[in-house]
């Protein structure tokens, strides 16, 4: 029988059997041309074929039909070799998707039955084969499985293609696949996708492509990837819940394919070759799915919202809307929280000696540390400005901060007064000069500093000094007075004392930056002492 395969390049044209047959060389000798007319009746394809028993299968024709987009008209002329199978198939087929119908009808019966067995006909060929084919149960099972994955109405499985044929027609098939996949994707996208449909279409497309891979691996793979992306995209279009199920279905379909592919390996090399590439694309598909799943998760909510909206319109069910919206909301919320947690961890690493696990306390410490850092930078800049000015008059303006820091910060809290003898780093301290001087005097490490006029404290310093001021006063009593510099308040000790006193950290840090380097100020008093 001669399968008049419509020119698959022409999407719409199905009824060019003769030309098609010529266009696509078939390895297997096709039986005499038998035109089986597939008539669409009530969504079902009824095949009227005079060829009751045709061993020839026309996979390419099937492919062509399949590839051809859904513009199939009601009546198609499809030459099928297997009428009975076709009939059976027709009865079983529920052609809800036109584009899939035509080639699906072609029974697996082939002049090369071995091919059928080898080929993952099971997956490709739904239970239609059961009727007429002597296919082993494997095929049935596979088909059944796949069928289950696919909605019964939608027959997305690929027709079995004998490896030989595949080899020849691989490239053309690849093209067909491309067309088909595109159409499938379009249909899937356009129809607001039944979950099974996209997955099944995707799996079918994958299956098809895998079968074609043997001869043209690269393009097939490319096509597969292409299709897979579309399929995945289509899947993405589904609601997130639907995506998972569709993905599962698609994955199962792919897996089934892999199984079939493996079983097919017994067949001539093409099949084995197809098995490998088939597995690869499957892995790729799975990876793609995983990636897409990740992308879906990481993807902005826009896609989900759009898909949700699409779904809403498609379904028009309030519950679905709400559930989807809630899902989307949860996903977005989770993503936001993850981002925030990540930033919090980064911040925690930046903060020295941050042993807090609690978010709030960690943020507290971060705030204090930030303030202390700002203060330190400010003081250092002041110090830089101070040094160039060496003349005595300038000493007045010697940065109090430098003094304060050197002295262990905080003790000069109250020295911010302009006339105070002691520079007040932290400024703002309200300690009266005389009292402060008296209070701090004994601890003042450097007599030279005593001579220093009280520099005009910066307003900022004044503000900063307010806090440590109180602490200083309390610290002053506690801080151990160094032998040489009783007044000197070691910033580190200050810090320690502060901690002992449960003084807020920023004050300590502001005072002496103890967090950054504990023993750092030890030099200060010693140096001061030397100068003494």
């Amino acid at each position, binding site marked *: 029988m001669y399968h008049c395969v419509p020119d698959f390049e022409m999407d719409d044209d199905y009824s060019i059997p003769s030309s098609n047959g010529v266009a696509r060389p078939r390895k297997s000798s096709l039986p005499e041309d038998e035109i089986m007319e597939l008539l669409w009746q009530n969504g079902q394809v009824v095949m009227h074929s005079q060829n009751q028993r045709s061993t020839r299968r026309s996979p390419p024709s099937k492919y062509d039909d399949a590839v051809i987009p859904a513009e199939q008209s009601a009546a198609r002329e499809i030459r099928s070799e297997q009428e009975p199978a076709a009939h059976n198939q027709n009865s079983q087929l529920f052609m809800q998707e036109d584009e899939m119908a035509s080639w699906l009808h072609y029974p697996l019966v082939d002049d090369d039955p071995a091919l059928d067995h080898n080929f993952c006909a099971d997956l490709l060929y739904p239970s239609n084969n059961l009727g007429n084919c002597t296919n082993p149960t494997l095929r049935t099972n596979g088909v059944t499985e796949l069928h289950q994955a696919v909605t019964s109405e939608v027959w997305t499985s690929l027709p079995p293609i004998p490896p030989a044929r595949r080899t020849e027609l691989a490239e053309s098939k690849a093209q067909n696949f491309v067309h088909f996949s595109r159409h499938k994707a379009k249909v899937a996208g356009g129809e607001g996708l039944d979950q099974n449909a996209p997955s099944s279409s995707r799996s079918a497309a994958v299956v098809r492509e895998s079968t074609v891979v043997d001869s043209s691996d690269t393009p097939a793979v490319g096509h597969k990837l292409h299709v897979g992306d579309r399929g995945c995209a289509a899947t993405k279009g589904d609601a997130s819940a639907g995506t998972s199920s569709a993905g599962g279905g698609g994955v199962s379909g792919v897996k089934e394919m892999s199984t079939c592919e493996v079983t097919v390996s017994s067949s001539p090399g093409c099949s084995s070759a197809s098995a490998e590439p088939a597995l690869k694309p499957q892995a790729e598909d799975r990876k793609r799915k995983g990636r897409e799943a990740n992308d879906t998760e990481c993807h902005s909510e826009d896609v989900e919202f759009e898909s949700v909206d699409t779904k809403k319109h498609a379904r028009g069910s309030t519950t679905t809307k709400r559930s989807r919206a809630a899902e989307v909301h949860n996903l977005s919320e989770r993503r936001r929280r993850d981002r925030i947690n990540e*930033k919090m961890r980064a911040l925690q690493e*930046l903060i020295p000696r941050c042993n807090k696990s609690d978010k709030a306390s960690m943020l507290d410490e971060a705030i204090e540390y*930030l303030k202390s850092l*700002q203060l330190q930078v400010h003081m250092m800049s002041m110090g830089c400005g101070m040094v160039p000015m060496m003349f005595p008059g300038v000493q007045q303006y010697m940065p109090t901060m*430098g003094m304060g820091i050197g002295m262990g910060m905080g003790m000069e809290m109250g020295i911010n007064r302009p006339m105070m003898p002691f520079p007040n780093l932290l400024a703002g301290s309200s300690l009266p000069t005389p009292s402060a001087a008296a209070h701090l005097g004994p601890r003042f490490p450097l007599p030279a500093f005593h001579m220093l006029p009280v520099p005009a404290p910066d307003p900022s310093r004044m503000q900063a000094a307010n806090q440590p001021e109180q602490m200083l006063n309390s610290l002053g009593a506690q801080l151990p007075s160094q032998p040489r510099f009783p007044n000197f308040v070691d910033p580190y000790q200050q810090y320690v004392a502060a901690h002992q006193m449960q003084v807020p950290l920023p004050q300590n840090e502001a005072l002496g*930056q103890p967090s950054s380097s504990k023993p750092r*100020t030890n030099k*200060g008093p010693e*140096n001061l002492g030397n*100068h003494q």
Partner: protein
Amino acid sequence: MSSRRSRQSGASRITDDQIIELVSKLRQLVPEIRNRRSDKVPASKVLQETCNYIRSLHREVDDLSERLSQLLATIDADSAEASIIRSLISQ
């Protein structure tokens, strides 16, 4: 959010408010964010900016320390300023 809060324990609810408050504090400290419209700055942005700011402050401190040490070399080691500078650097 409300449903989540109700589901969560009271402690978490308090923590949420604390966090919001702290984030606002941070927002005030970080000059970059301060100038933006604070009502629309997300927490993640604030944290990110804080990290960046802290890093920049670290760099500045290092830079200033280096400068101060250089200055220290130029002045009389016995001067008061020197001590000050040393103390500054040693922080």
